[in-house]
């Protein structure tokens, strides 16, 4: 997964949720080009990933709008500005280069920008990793958060942890080829398709897999990147040692600030502290908007995020066009580039 492409732009936007997408519009109106980057494979951020079918009621002039529809309409609204959107790659580095900023993504792409707007919500989505000591040393080799190649697990002893669809589906799918499967879950109820849960319980009765309930992961045993056993325990402290070659950990996705923590930003309780009238962070030319931006009496509303984008875009102008005057104009006077967005 290597992508050596590099781009130059006026404003780099981190996050393609509703607020990040709207940055394209506001920057575009001020003649600033944008590149938008997101860790997810689709635009829309939490709107798409967590609640696409849920109606939102507090978007002005839209009495009720499904989250997915809001994203589609935003995409239509920004289309005249020809947005460059790079998905499925997390921004891992933000570094000063002269008067500009260079962003690097996990797949190696780089973007150089005169200003940066961080609209990263609650952070990039990634696997919800169990907080086990030394888990990092096994990741990618014998600890997995997704299955890319079933064959890797042929004749292997597996611990599958979690109680949702992923855990149940993979337990069913791998039961045929694995040497042994332990399914570790904290309670005797699974959040998964009932038919699949029934099927898994049937396999357990036939001895094709073993349900280890009510246990939680406790620690890992192994050497270098090779796992040899997974220790689990009950709430009462009873422990079991499960001999295993691989751990498949399925606790869903969580948002994490991750690398954003390392960029020198002033972060408090997960929020990038900004000056609320400009959304400026402590770094020159770097702004934060939407759920990730923190200031006194902040409301985490999409509505607030949109307004913050307008503030940030106007403040970013000075970094993109340092020698040009900025005229405040209404969209009714300027219009938008053709074709008119629908």
């Amino acid at each position, binding site marked *: 997964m290597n992508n050596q492409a590099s781009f130059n732009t006026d404003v780099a936007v981190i996050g393609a949720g509703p607020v990040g997408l709207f940055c394209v519009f506001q920057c575009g109106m001020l003649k600033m080009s944008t590149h938008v980057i997101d860790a997810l494979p689709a635009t829309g951020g939490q709107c798409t990933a967590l609640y696409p079918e849920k109606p939102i009621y507090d978007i002005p002039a839209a009495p009720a709008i499904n989250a997915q529809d809001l994203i589609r309409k935003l995409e239509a609204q920004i289309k005249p500005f020809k947005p460059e959107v790079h998905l499925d790659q997390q921004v891992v580095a933000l570094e000063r280069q002269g008067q500009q900023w260079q962003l690097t993504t996990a797949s190696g792409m780089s973007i150089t920008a005169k200003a940066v707007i961080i609209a990263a919500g609650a952070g990039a989505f990634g696997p919800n990793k169990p907080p086990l000591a030394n888990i990092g040393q096994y990741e990618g080799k014998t600890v997995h958060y997704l299955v890319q190649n079933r064959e890797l697990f042929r004749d292997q002893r597996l611990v599958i942890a979690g109680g949702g669809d992923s855990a149940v589906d993979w337990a069913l799918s791998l039961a045929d080829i694995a040497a042994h499967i332990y399914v570790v879950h904290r309670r005797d*109820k699974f959040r998964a398709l009932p038919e699949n849960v029934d099927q898994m319980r049937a396999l357990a009765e036939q001895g094709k897999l073993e349900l280890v309930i009510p246990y939680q*992961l406790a620690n890992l045993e192994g050497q270098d990147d090779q796992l040899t056993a997974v220790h689990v325990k009950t709430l009462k402290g009873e422990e079991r040692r499960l001999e295993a070659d691989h751990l498949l950990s399925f606790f869903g996705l969580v948002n994490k600030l991750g690398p954003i923590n390392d960029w020198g930003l002033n972060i408090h309780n997960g929020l990038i502290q900004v000056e609320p009238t400009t959304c400026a962070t402590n770094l020159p030319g770097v702004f934060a908007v939407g759920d990730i931006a923190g200031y006194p009496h902040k409301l985490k509303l999409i509505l607030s995020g949109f307004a913050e984008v307008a503030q940030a875009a106007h403040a970013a102008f000075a970094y993109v066009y340092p020698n040009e005057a900025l005229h405040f104009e209404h969209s009714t006077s300027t219009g938008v580039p053709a074709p008119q967005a629908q």
Partner: protein
Amino acid sequence: MPRITFITVDGERVETDAKAGNSVMEVAKELDLPMLAACGGALACATCHVIVEEDWFEKTGELSEDEEDLLDTAHDLTETSRLCCQIKVSDDLDGLVVRLTPME
């Protein structure tokens, strides 16, 4: 006003007089305690996971199925684990003590 005590991961005790009707998560955020509470109380994450002191657990009420489902995605659970956005402050909880869990 019901008195609520938070014990941080570092062992610091923070006491406050809480407003009845607020959630314990809202009280913690008001105090600016180290807690993510990423979804803001929408029952969509497990980042306000707290451990209720044993004597108080039953008084915090029954867990809904949604809260149980989300606790499936939390780590290092205990027998008195709760999502504190689901605990409503009331006079019955005067004296409540909860322990915060690590933020990441």
